[in-house]
Every structure is written in structure tokens, then in C-alpha cells.
């Protein structure tokens, strides 16, 4: 009747399972090391002074002089504030505009929908360097050069396409009947969006918003090009342009201290929102 299948002893399979678990553990450790080491190295370096830096000791020296100096530096505080403004404004604008665009692209039927979606995708294909000089001209025309808001304007060019794309696919997968029910209940498009869709889009909004925030927070090339004076710099530029006490000293320690400092808010944000990202709010919407 049944085919003859070769079978080994139970002990063999038990041993195999242990080996597999051990191998998986090793791989995980290796991966974690690869991912975390640069960050750990930055922390270690940030607490070392002068010549110690050239000592490749893996233990932190626990000397927080660089951090104290950093917080006494008014320019650094300004650049953190600038970064916060730019990142928050970029996130808010791209989520707001992205949601509206996504609803139109995902739900309303109009003939140009497909080509519009493709255009949005095309925009996000271009590398930053390609649009850099053109963007520079635009910013000059609008009189935004060396202003913090020029960066919001520039960042939307890469945050808006991806928020629109992600939210469009989210809205497309939304149960159609839920929307029809809202139509029967007398809702306008605006009310469907605000009362039905938005409350249920929490997880999608949080995850795309977080990505937009991180992109805007870490962006370097545009920030370097479109700002000139210290007062309008964002954090990545401020760090990149940190100068030592003399032209022969490379301020490695302060740079590391600053880098660690500006990464912390991102980590806090991600940890805070991670539960929201996972939460499946649409559960129970249909069927059961």
C-alpha cells in the first residue's frame, strides 16, 4: 500500500534537533555581533580620551568628558532642535499628504490612477545626487537657501513617495464592505477617511511615520548642501563638521559622543512604538 520510507532511530532525530538548535544559536550570535558591533564601538570610543583612542581596547573607559562638552555646546543644541523640527515636520507632512494621496490612489477610480502610481514610484528611484543640483535651484528660487525649512521641502521628495506607496497598498487591502457600510451609513469620503480608515490605519501610520522620521533625522547630503551657517545645520551635518582644537587633531571622541547622543532618541522611538506596529487592529472587522 504505502511507499516504503527510510526511517532512523528516535535518538538520531533528537540529536539532529539539538545540532540544528545550536547552529541557529551560533548564527544568531554572529548576526547580532555584526549588527551591534559598530554601535558598541562608537559607545566605547566616545568615552576615551586623546591617545587612548588608538588603543583598540574593547572595554569602555567610562570617561564622559566628551558628553559634558557636547551639552555645553550651544551650536549642538541648536542643531538637535533643527533636526527635531525638520524630522517632525517632514513626518507630519508626508503622513498627511501620503494618507490623502493613498486614499485617492487606493480607492477612488479615476483613469490616470495607474500612471500616477508609477510616477510616484519613479520619483523614488532617482538617487539623491541626481536631483541635488535641480533641488538646489528650486530652493534658491523659493528663497529657502540656508533655512531649516528648505530641508523639509527637500526631504518630502523621498519620504512622500514611499509613505504614499505603503499606505496605498494598506488601503487597497482594506475590506471593501467596510467602506460600503460607511457609504450606506451616509459618510462622505472625508468622513470615511477620518472616522473609519484613519483609526484603523494606526499600525501602518506608525511604521511608515517612523521610517520617514529616521530618514529625515539621518539625512546628510541635502542637509550639507542646502545649509551654510551653524545656526541652520542639522545634527548629521553638525557632527560631520565638528572641528578639533587644532587642525592636526581629528575629534574622534567628540564625534562618537555626538553620534551616540543623536541615535538614542531614535532607539527610544522605535522601542516605544514597536507594540503599536505589531498590533493587528483589523482583527474582527470581517468574518470570524
Amino acid at each position, binding site marked *: 500500500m504505502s511507499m516504503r520510507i527510510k526511517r532512523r532511530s528516535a535518538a538520531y532525530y533528537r540529536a539532529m534537533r539539538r545540532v540544528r538548535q545550536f547552529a541557529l544559536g551560533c548564527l544568531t550570535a554572529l548576526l547580532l555581533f555584526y549588527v551591534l558591533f559598530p554601535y558598541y564601538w562608537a559607545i566605547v570610543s566616545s568615552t576615551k580620551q586623546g591617545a587612548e583612542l588608538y588603543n583598540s581596547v574593547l572595554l569602555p573607559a567610562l570617561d564622559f568628558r566628551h558628553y559634558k562638552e557636547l551639552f555645553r555646546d550651544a551650536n549642538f543644541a541648536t542643531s538637535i532642535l533643527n533636526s527635531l523640527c525638520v524630522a517632525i515636520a517632514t513626518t507630519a507632512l508626508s503622513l498627511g499628504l501620503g494618507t490623502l494621496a493613498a486614499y485617492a490612489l487606493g480607492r477612488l477610480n479615476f483613469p490616470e490612477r495607474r500612471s500616477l502610481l508609477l510616477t510616484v514610484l519613479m520619483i523614488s528611484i532617482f538617487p539623491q545626487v541626481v536631483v541635488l543640483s535641480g533641488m538646489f535651484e528650486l530652493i534658491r528660487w523659493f528663497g529657502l537657501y540656508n533655512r531649516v525649512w528648505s530641508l523639509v521641502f527637500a526631504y518630502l521628495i523621498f519620504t512622500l513617495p514611499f509613505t504614499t506607496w505603503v499606505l496605498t497598498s494598506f488601503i487597497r487591502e482594506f475590506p471593501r464592505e467596510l467602506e460600503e457600510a460607511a*457609504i450606506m*451609513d451616509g459618510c462622505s469620503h472625508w468622513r470615511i477617511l477620518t472616522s473609519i480608515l484613519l483609526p484603523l490605519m494606526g499600525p501602518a501610520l506608525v511604521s511608515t511615520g517612523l521610517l520617514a522620521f529616521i530618514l529625515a533625522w539621518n539625512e546628510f547630503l541635502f542637509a550639507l548642501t542646502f545649509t551654510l551657517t551653524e545656526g541652520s545645520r542639522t545634527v548629521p551635518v553638525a557632527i560631520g563638521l565638528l572641528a578639533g582644537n587644532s587642525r592636526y587633531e581629528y575629534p574622534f571622541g567628540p564625534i562618537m559622543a555626538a553620534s551616540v547622543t543623536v541615535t538614542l532618541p531614535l532607539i527610544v522611538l522605535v522601542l516605544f512604538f514597536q507594540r503599536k506596529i505589531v498590533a493587528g*487592529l483589523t482583527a474582527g472587522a470581517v468574518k470570524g
Partner: protein
Amino acid sequence: MASVALRSVSKSFGHVPVITDVNLEIADGELVVFVGPSGCGKSTLLRLIAGLVPVGAGDIVIDGEVVTDIPASKRGIAFVFQSYALYPHMTIARNIGFALETLGLSRQEIDAKVAEVAATLKIDHLLARRPRELSGGQRQRVAIGRALVRQPEVFLFDEPLSNLDSDLRMEMRMEIAKLHANLAATMIYVTHDQVEAMTLADRIVVLNRGRIEQIGTPQQLYHAPQNRFVAGFIGSPRMNFMAVSANASSSDCHMQGPGSLSFDVSLSAPGVPAEIGIRPEALSIATQGQGKVTGTLERLEDLGHEHLAYIRIAPDVAWSVRLSNSLGKNALGTSIGLDWRFEDLFLFDKNGHRLDHSLSHERSAVANGVRA
């Protein structure tokens, strides 16, 4: 309460016609069921009436008024969705009252109406919960409550029971029948379930490929289907069909077919039968060597209250027979003769239209329940 009429309604998605020239009059207080195979356009037709899908051509009339261009929420219609479509982030109370909220009613008015509807549907203890905390049956009640609260003139149901298990389905079927009796509201109900269609409907509309095949009471559809499609669609197990060759001379017609089928019938109107049809419950086992057709017993199914026998008449023709007693396992593989009464025989021409034969006047008597 209101009547509903469809006047030459057509709809196509792109180049694909979904609904073609549908005309239908639904009286005030009637419960009409749309049935048809999947993709026949029954759900689309319901959405056209609701106004969720714009009409391509023709008019939709509710209570004597053309509503073709009136938005869905202003047609005085309530829609119960297959998936219930409850808002997952709102409480049950808010789900039911949401339409009233949109209308701009005061909090007290909404609360009062929601409480009243919840009480009639026995879901008043669930009002503070959210949809995901409810069972399928409870969600179904909430969905109906959401329709009730608006006091619509017409209720539209889109396969409302298809997500429930069979016990619950029966219970909710009764519930809907009771609702219809109490409210005397016009209801249009889409289903693919024969039992729901036969038990709930005042009239059934059979749809196929976007066209109406037949409109009639459940009894008319069962006893006097107009064509082969309706005959095959209504009834479970479905009607047995077999292609025959007919030799017509005036009204008398001699027919031959597989399984040594051979008999004469007189047609009441001109036409050439191409196919015969007999329902499984109209067939009986003939005594040895007798019967109008013979075949081999291939399979027996014991359903407890009845038995089904499958008899192969030709390589591509197998008929099912509904029996009250088992034929016994020993009968498998033996040759069996089948018999039927002439009034139970349906004849179809090559286009699938049913042809009346001389005894068919007796069928109307059968339809009225006067079985000899």
C-alpha cells in the same frame, strides 16, 4: 414601506457585461430572493439597487420614484453585508448608531433608538463590547441591528448567513423570516443556498450570466421551470438530464436514448425535444427488466433519513435517485430499471426551453399540492 422596480437595468465593468437588461417589479412588503451560480451578477444587482455601484443604463425605482442618481444613503435602504462589515474600532452601540450619528441626531435620541433595536435583537448586553469580542451569530445580529435602526423602507441582504455554521444558519433564517413578518418591509435577499431561497422567498429570481432566467414562487420554479438552467439550478440533488434523439411526426413524438430509452409522448406545442429531465425524487426503481430506462447501480449513499443511488446509464450520464429505503450493498454493479410518471418528465429543446407535453396540464395541479 416601498416597492422596488428595475427598468432595463444594465451594467458592465470595463468591457465585461455583468447585468444585461434586467426588468423586475418587487411589490411592497415582498421578500424576493436572488439566486444563481457564483459570478451571475446577483451581488452586483443588489449593489445597483443600493446605489453602491453606479447604474450603467436603465432606471431604479423605489416607491414610484426614480432613484438612479440618488446617493446610496438617501434611498431609504439598509444593507446587510456578507462579512457583516462592522467597524472594528467602535463599540457595538456606536456601530449600530453610526448612521444616526452621521444624520446628526442628538445623543439621547441615538441612545434610545440603539437600546430599542438592541432589545428586539437580544443583543443589549453586548453594547459596550467591540466586534472582535463577539461570536459570528452575535455579529450577524449586530449587522441586522445596524440595518434596523435606520427604519429603512427596503432591506437588502447579501448572503448574510453564508459565514455561519449550519445550526446557527437555520436559527438566523427563522429570525429573518420573523423579522419580515413583523416589519412587513420589502426585502431583497441574495443567496446561493437553495434552502434559504426556497424557505424565505415570496418569489425567487434566478439569475444567470447577468440575465433573469425566471421569476416565480418557489413552487413555480420547482414544478414548472421555464428552461433547462432553472430546472437544473433549483432542487438538490439536481435534476437528472439526458440527451435524446427525437423523431417528431406532427404532435406525436418518439424518443430514443441511452439505456434502451424508448417512449412516445405527445407535444402540446410544436418543437423538437433534445433533452429530457427528471428529478431524483420522481424516479422509482422498476421491477426486474422493466422501467423506461436501465443502467448500472454505481454507488449508494446512506444519509439516514434517505438514500441516494447513483445509476450509470451511459459513459457520460449518471442519474441520482432519491429513495426512502436502501437497495442493499448486494445490488451494487447490478442492472437496474428506472421508472417515472409522465407528469414528472420535463422535455427541453436544443436551446434549453422547456416543451409542454400532453400531460403537463396535470403539473399545475401538482404545483398546487394536489398530488394524486
